[in-house]
């Protein structure tokens, strides 16, 4: 990999390598990370359709919840959090 074309992004505080032009989903799967979020019933979910339709690959991206990682490109320093749907729903309820 060309040094200039790679950079770090962070998942739950841990640095992983991204290639320029990759979507966040592509970066995760290149780093053997399959789980993007946990459902309200606590089940793990990850990339399924890869084209923005199924919404299974949602994560908290730079503090914004429910971002489809397959449709969002990685930027140097992007901060990802594995999404916990139960907690997201509660935070909406508070607003």
């Amino acid at each position, binding site marked *: 990999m060309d040094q200039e074309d790679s950079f770090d992004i962070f998942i739950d505080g841990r640095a992983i390598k991204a*290639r320029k032009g990759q979507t966040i989903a592509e970066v995760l799967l*290149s780093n053997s990370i*399959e789980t993007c979020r946990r459902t309200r019933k606590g089940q793990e979910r990850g990339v399924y*359709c*890869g084209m923005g339709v199924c*919404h*299974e690959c949602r994560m908290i991206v730079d503090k*914004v919840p429910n971002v489809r990682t397959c*449709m969002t490109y990685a930027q140097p320093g992007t901060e990802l959090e594995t999404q916990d749907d139960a907690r997201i729903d509660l935070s909406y309820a508070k607003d």
Partner: protein
Amino acid sequence: MQRTDLIVIGGGPAGISAAVEAAKQGAFVSIIDENRNLGGKVLHNDEQGIAKLPAEPVEDKTKKELFAELKQVENQIDIYPESEVWDIDASDLKVTFSSRGRDGSQSINLQGKSIVIATGALERAIPFPGWEQPGVFSIGGLNSLVKRGVLPGKSFLVAGSGPLLLLLANNLLKAGAEVSAVVQTPSNFALFRNSWKLMRSFSFDKLLLGFKYLLKIRSKGIPVYNGYALAEVKTNGDKKEASVLKLDAEGKAINSSKKQIEIDNAAVSYGLMPNIILTRLCGCKHFYDRQRYYWRVDSDQNMQTSVSKIFAAGDGVAIKGYLASMVEGRIAGLQACAAMGHLDQNTADFRCRPLQGKMQKLSAVGLAMDKLSRTGENIFDLISDQTVICRCEEVTMSDIRRAVENGAKDIEDIKRQTRLGMGHCQGRFCGQVVNELLAKVSAENKEPQLFTPRIPAKPISFKDLGS
């Protein structure tokens, strides 16, 4: 409010062809596409050089020609990349979309004089136990990843039906992955019969490509199970265990025939169907095509829908592949110009005639492809009570059964009682099978129904909504 002549939604083979044809007649065209680069799934124009696998030479040639044509009329074409349409006002020809690709994230209103909808295909998904787990992909989903140099694991099971299975298996091998098995629901006999139909429609190129892929798969000693189904995927630590069952002549699974295969990842889907979200939002007439087993927009030979000045083209109308989609796109582009007054109707009709002749020949190919993907209703017997049907709202088969016991009569009743189809994806996947599942538990044979289309058709943030 921004204004343009022709709005083309979807910048794949059909959309680009429509835009190019309209621009040549002097129209100003705006193309709205979800991705960073145009070209759609097959002819994706990878400007960033991410792709790792070389494309098929014939695809590469077509792509270069199409993008060269687009370049010639670039002054008349405005492209909105990374933009998703979430509302259309068909009477005012006004399209509203969220756009991330230019000038940051915002919502844009664009009014045109005509609209071409070319939003392509969705994959047909049939639920089975374990399909919701991370590491189980749709065929097209995994194929795009592999083409772009991403391999989520080492060993893969490719299952379902349709021509994309062999394509994905072939791409996985090219990328250096291990394919544990290819599992196809159609029997050898069904595959032979439909290949024969492809031959009779003079589509030797498609057949040859299929045989080339099959030979490569077979030469590596990879088992290809025809007349089998992937029945379950279980996760055991880092590995997954797939259960594969043989199907009898009626397509029912034979439980004693179980094969267990250890894999890292699986990819499953059962062919393609048109994405009709936006044509439905426009109020265009649709019908259930009993030969192809999916809903489609009603359009005439000019690609005109039932709504004035709204045209549809490509796989979004009926599955036909990129070559036929490009022909339809050109017809739609010419006819849209006639509708907008950029071209008189007689000239448009005259120029469309040879294209329509081509379409007649090519449409047989699409039909044969759909038949190659056909999987009988008995495949739904693989679904257990605990199987997740609506992935977003985590509605299981037993929830649907309970709703019917509590008096649910149609799919809207099921939606109200279980929340099936009310999650983030808005029923894009569970909506495909809810009719069949309802028929299974209620033992009544109803006409197939669709969920009412709702806005926003795609997600939009409150911040952008206010912009």
